[in-house]
């Protein structure tokens, strides 16, 4: 059994953050806030990756976190660019 009990606390925090993020995406209607919620979800995943990497004593998790960080940044850029582009033509943003 590769997982020790200490990892549980991190996993619970990560799961809660992920759920809060998911609820945010589902409940809120402002794309910027939805977008922040998605970032929260990704970072919750990062937290569990780091917890696992530490407790499994394996470097894969950290590598994954690097990739997720970069991908999240790229997502920020693309998402905000789309929002800016919509804003340019409409002067209001709302997903409805």
């Amino acid at each position, binding site marked *: 059994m590769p997982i020790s009990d200490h990892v549980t606390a991190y996993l619970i925090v990560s799961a809660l953050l992920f759920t809060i993020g998911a609820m945010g995406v589902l409940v809120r209607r402002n794309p910027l806030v939805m977008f922040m919620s998605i970032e929260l979800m990704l970072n919750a995943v990062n937290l569990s990756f780091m917890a696992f990497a530490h407790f*499994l004593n394996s470097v894969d998790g950290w590598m994954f976190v690097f990739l997720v960080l970069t991908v999240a940044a790229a997502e920020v850029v693309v998402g905000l660019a789309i929002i800016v582009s919509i804003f340019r033509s409409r002067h209001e943003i709302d997903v409805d």
Partner: protein
Amino acid sequence: MIFADISPFTYTPGATDWLRILPELILLGTGLLTLMADLVAAPGRKGWLALVGLAGVIGALVATVMLWAGGTYGDAFYGMVNDDRVALFASVVILFAVGVGLLFSPGYVERQGIVHAGEYYTLMILAALGMMLMSSASNLMMLFVGLEILSLALYILSAIVTTRRRSQEAGMKYFILSSFASAFLLYGMALTYGATGKTSLAGIRAFVTTHAFTMGSGFGPLLVVALGLMAVGFCFKVSAIPFQAWTPDVYVGAPTSVTAFMSVGTKVAAFVGLARVFLFALSPLRPTWEPVLWVVAVLTMIGGNLLAATQRDVKRMLAYSSVANAGYMMVAVATHTQASFQGLLIYLATYAAMNLGAFGVVLALERRDGQGTTLDDFAGLGRRNPALAALMALFMFALAGTPATAGFIGKWYVFYAAMRGAHVELAIIGLLASLVGVYYYLRVVWAIYFTEPATAPLLVTADESAPVHEPIASASATATGGVALAEPATATGIAMATRVLPAERAPVHLATWLGLALAGVLTLVLGIVPMLMVDWALAAAQTLVK
């Protein structure tokens, strides 16, 4: 010191590693080249960038075929990518899709007045690169990176028509929902990693094979949750019901050339990724995930077909039809035998040919404002443009699954494998659902040949959005400007002559014809002499599903 207990490790890739990702390297080079070429291209004259991209795609195709013929496939880059036959088969389909997508583009980009034509071609190629990486991934990291490369490129491509509101909304919607799904998939990957301690698919498979799976085993609950999360993520990406909500709006809002490419390419990449994770890495946990995918397959087949049957707009109908087709492919995944995986690959290849073609005809008819794709617009097409009408009829018959077309071959192999693989009920549900499909596909054919266009005075308003950025000066752009009032006509013959359809006044671009012809020929060839492809698919299936 946190790194103290991890031994220093370096991996220096050799020539084999680079050779094995040669198709991807060629595509990457082409993508960067088109990006730089865009800087020197004169505004408004960017059609040649499509040629550059096409040359790269053909180069990558040649490299893929050489790798297949060479037969030296396997892991590369420390088990990050695996260019096995599955990856090469998927690569060929993806390259075909992006090639035809690029052929569709020049005429369409001009007609739609897409300002960022250079970026458009670059992003098409980079999206294809992401799809190929995803389908050749043998590590969860690579799977995720490939998925994100393709998704990020497609978000922008969906929103690239800056003068059309629907396109931008499609991009936004696709972006939010798809990143949401990515986060689920990623969380599933994290929990899989936590449960097994591995991110490589082979490592995960080895772990779940050697360790008995029970809920009390510490990693059991983690794996169950991980399976669920990953299933949600993948179902989103392949637009399976109940996660299909984004599909119609995005497919309709995005430029049609992008939709054609995206509907095929994303499915190939996501289904091969799904197969790699579920049929290969987590294959020993089959009893756990099989019921979930079974339900998804049934829901998607029935729901997709019923929703498609209610649509009047052909583009939207095709979007729902791609949902329904995801259901047939999901049958192949849920069956989980070597034959069913072979069926999945065959279905992907045949679906690529006919779906690209169908969207291509829609693209040829679409007007500047994104209108002109309803059933009424197809009425009487058989006389106005016989060649286009014949092609559309061919693709519709193929999608309906008529024998001697590609669609029949795909359905045959998937359903036959389902019957032999102890899933007779899936095959029966699939056959009944595709009967609904016959109705709405053939309704288009009916409209083309057996209905007449409306004879009432017809107000054709072009261009809902006055161009903010002055679009490329082209014959088609000027042809669509203004408001044209068609005269009332009594005789149907005159009605057809006077009906103002700017899409037809601007002739279909030569490259679009070429793309349509390619798709049409392939639809017929795969339907009449499919054995070569079937053998290739079998060779591919044997490497993944033992």
